[in-house]
């Protein structure tokens, strides 16, 4: 049995080892090299790239990425929780509503981001409607700022928050809510003091599933932020393309990975039941 099992796992090991772990090792090595005169990598070995990370300019980008990701996560939670609650209580139509939530997810992320470009620009639908209604006289600068980026991120990752929340809410024991009602709790108190605490695992899972991709987001700040809302993902891409500074880009990537792993260890340490 063990031999058969080894055969079953071998292809995955080859792929993971060769196409995921080996590349990470390569960029780890690159992060300790120097940039060639016109780009690429060269000797000597040095930790200079990591030292450059401490520059306030780059710490500022890290900070911006963190608060944009955090705000997006909180908004997803605030918007997604009532939705998950509704679906979990809707009886017969649960699957239909779930499909409706997941349907945008199946469409291209690029298309969904482009949809907001289409709506938010100066001559886009929102501005035109507001101008026609006489609410504003000049177009509002809705695009190319942090707000647009957050909107795009919330729109893109809302389904990722709703699903784990729904999963936990669905398993909630109704009797607990009945007991709370019997003891005199009003619906709002029952919500805040019974439902939400019991949902904690789902909230944690959803928060991780939203925060981490938002932290490393690239497309959304690129298209909706106009290259001004530079986040870590954009900085990394920039170093590997136009700036051609591979050691620095590698150092930033590994720093990002370290943050992600620290978050995972901190958040999921308490959870024995993982996804795998």
């Amino acid at each position, binding site marked *: *049995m063990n031999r*058969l*099992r080894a055969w*079953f*796992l071998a*292809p*995955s*090991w080859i*792929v*993971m080892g060769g*196409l*995921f772990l080996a*590349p990470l090792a*390569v*960029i780890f090595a*690159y992060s300790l090299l120097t940039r060639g005169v016109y780009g690429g990598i060269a000797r000597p070995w040095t930790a200079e790239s990591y030292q450059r990370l401490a520059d306030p300019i780059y710490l500022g980008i890290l900070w911006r990425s963190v608060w944009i990701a955090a705000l997006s996560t909180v908004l997803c939670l605030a918007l997604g929780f*009532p*939705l998950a*609650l*509704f679906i979990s209580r809707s009886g017969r139509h649960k699957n239909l509503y779930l499909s*409706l*939530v997941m*349907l*945008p997810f*199946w*469409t*291209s*992320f*690029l*298309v969904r981001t*482009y*949809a907001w*470009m*289409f709506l938010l*620009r100066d*001559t*886009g*639908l929102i501005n*035109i409607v507001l101008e026609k209604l006489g609410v504003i006289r000049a177009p509002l600068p809705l695009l190319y700022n942090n707000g647009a980026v957050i909107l795009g991120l919330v*729109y893109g990752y809302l*389904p990722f928050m709703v699903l784990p929340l729904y999963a936990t809410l669905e398993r909630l024991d109704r009797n607990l809510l009945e007991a709370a*009602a019997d003891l005199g709790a*009003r*619906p709002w108190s029952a919500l805040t003091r019974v439902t939400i605490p019991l949902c904690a695992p789902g909230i944690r899972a959803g928060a991780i599933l939203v925060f981490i991709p938002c932290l*490393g987001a*690239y*497309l959304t700040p690129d*298209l909706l932020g106009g290259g001004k809302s530079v986040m870590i*993902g954009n900085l*990394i*891409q920039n170093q*590997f393309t136009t700036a051609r500074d591979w050691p620095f880009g590698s150092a930033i*990537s590994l720093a*990002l*990975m370290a943050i*992600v*792993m620290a978050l*995972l260890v901190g958040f999921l340490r308490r959870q024995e039941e993982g*996804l*795998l």
Partner: protein
Amino acid sequence: MNRVVVNRTGLGLAMYAVAAFLFLHLPLLILAAFSFNRSRFTVWQGFSLAWYRAALHDSQLLEASSNSLIIAIFATVVSTIIGTLCAYGMWKRNSPALAGSLYLSLVTPEIVTGISLLAFYQWIFRFLRIPLGMHTVILAHIAFSIAFVVIVVMARLRTMDGQLEEAALDLGANHWQAFRYITLPVILPGVLAAALLAFTVSFDDYVITSLVAGVDSETLPMVIYAIARRGVNPVVNAISALIVIGFGALILISERLRSA
């Protein structure tokens, strides 16, 4: 009294749900609606299929679409097979190292996966002289799809009764036969769902593909991005509508097959 309050909450929740669903779907519906607009500006100037005609006659778009399709099909087939085998093996007995690697590949930001693969390919190029092309993209897609497949198939495996296999073994089947004739048919819906997920993720990928693609492997998301970068273009609206309908149909078909 409690019943009245609960109903009011129920109504409020329902109204909120309607608003939330509108938020989720309206942007895409508007995008699709304006793909039929004769003018390229946001002022409605009459119904027209011109943009669809332009999209379907653009040779670059057609080639990119066919590239995306080929890459997605190859990547899906390979990652589904490898991922299913892996999920089965890990269901028998967990391998923390492999589980950790898979989970890490799931949460690693796409940009990091992409640049690490690019750096890896460039490093290998010094020895093997293989240029970037379709194969580098397909390999990259396989790499990031496997974790998705493993999760979905594993979820399906967990709902299965392990005793079925034991019974087969008792009756004289060997391990491979037990897997092939007992387990596989049971988890097949899960495998198909995983394949669908892998296909979607591969077809839709922009970040990783744009970094590791070669001259001949431009994909549909890359072309869309190049057009979208210049600003709003109704051709993108048309392509987007086609993609949404295409995938919607795919999902519907798979749902029908699953419940059949």
